């Protein structure tokens, strides 16, 4: 089944307090070397049927209309192919 991924990120000039909070927490946990963190959102849309340019364009419209707020966020749309059988990583056997 085709999957379209929409990544939404706060615009570079917009303050990202959540990213700042994560950045502040990393050294406290002993992780060093990270100079900046920006936190965004990832949407995975499973779509039915063939993945045409038309469908991707529709997802772009969804991203511009609902999934992101163009005043404060940028988005990218990408297509992922999902393997028929996905092994679950880390599940108890």
């Amino acid at each position, binding site marked *: 089944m085709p999957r379209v991924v929409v990544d939404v990120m*706060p615009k570079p*000039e*917009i*303050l990202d*307090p*959540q990213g*700042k*909070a994560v950045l502040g927490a990393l050294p406290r946990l002993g992780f060093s070397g990270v100079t900046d963190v920006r936190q965004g959102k990832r949407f995975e849309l499973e779509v039915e049927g063939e993945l045409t340019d038309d469908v991707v364009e529709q997802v772009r419209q969804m991203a511009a209309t*609902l*999934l992101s*707020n163009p*005043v*404060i966020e940028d988005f990218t749309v990408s297509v992922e192919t999902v393997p028929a059988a996905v092994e679950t990583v880390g599940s108890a056997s």
Partner: protein
Amino acid sequence: MRVGVVTFPGSLDDVDAQRAARIGGHEAVGLWHGDHDLRGVDAVVLPGGFSYGDYLRCGALSRFSPVMTEVVEAARRGMPVLGICNGFQILCESHLLPGALIRNDHRRFVCRDQRLRIENNRTPWTAAYDEGAEITIALKNGEGGFVADAETLDRLEGEGRVVARYLEVNPNGSMRDIAGIANERGNVVGLMPHPEHSVEELTGTGTDGLGFFTSFARVADLAEAVLA
């Protein structure tokens, strides 16, 4: 006048807003997010709270509720609309007002008695105040930081569309201390603090918020005086 107050799933201050409208001398009319119906009201208040659980972004899902289709259309025709807190967020998401509201810069929810200056008393929601009036009303938000690009901020200030500004403390990182703005026409106003909590001596910070609910009576009187 008939003042409609919209209840969304997750609205908190709809009952207070209705009460404030009644104390302001109006008939309060409950409106439901799921209805394509404004029930013949003369003005609409979008109250504070966490509509749709603040899922996705504050106000992002409310914007597409059936009642908002009607509110947006009525606002474009000139109906007075006041968005308080979450209501302000909904107005920005609906593009009735420019800019956006993001998480407080200090990352904490803030709840305080906030001093404000009313900078524009030419809206149907602020006509009862003197220009430059300083008032204290409740403020409570987690995502109240008003942001917009420099050009938009310059335009808002240049056109006198900053309705209220924070005094003494900027509680949430809002650009240029902006607490409330209006659209070009002035009928749509968004305000982060809560005038509806300051309408009676018994509770809250006094009655400094009442003006938001008595203003359009005054506007109507003025209009009648002009027409007469």
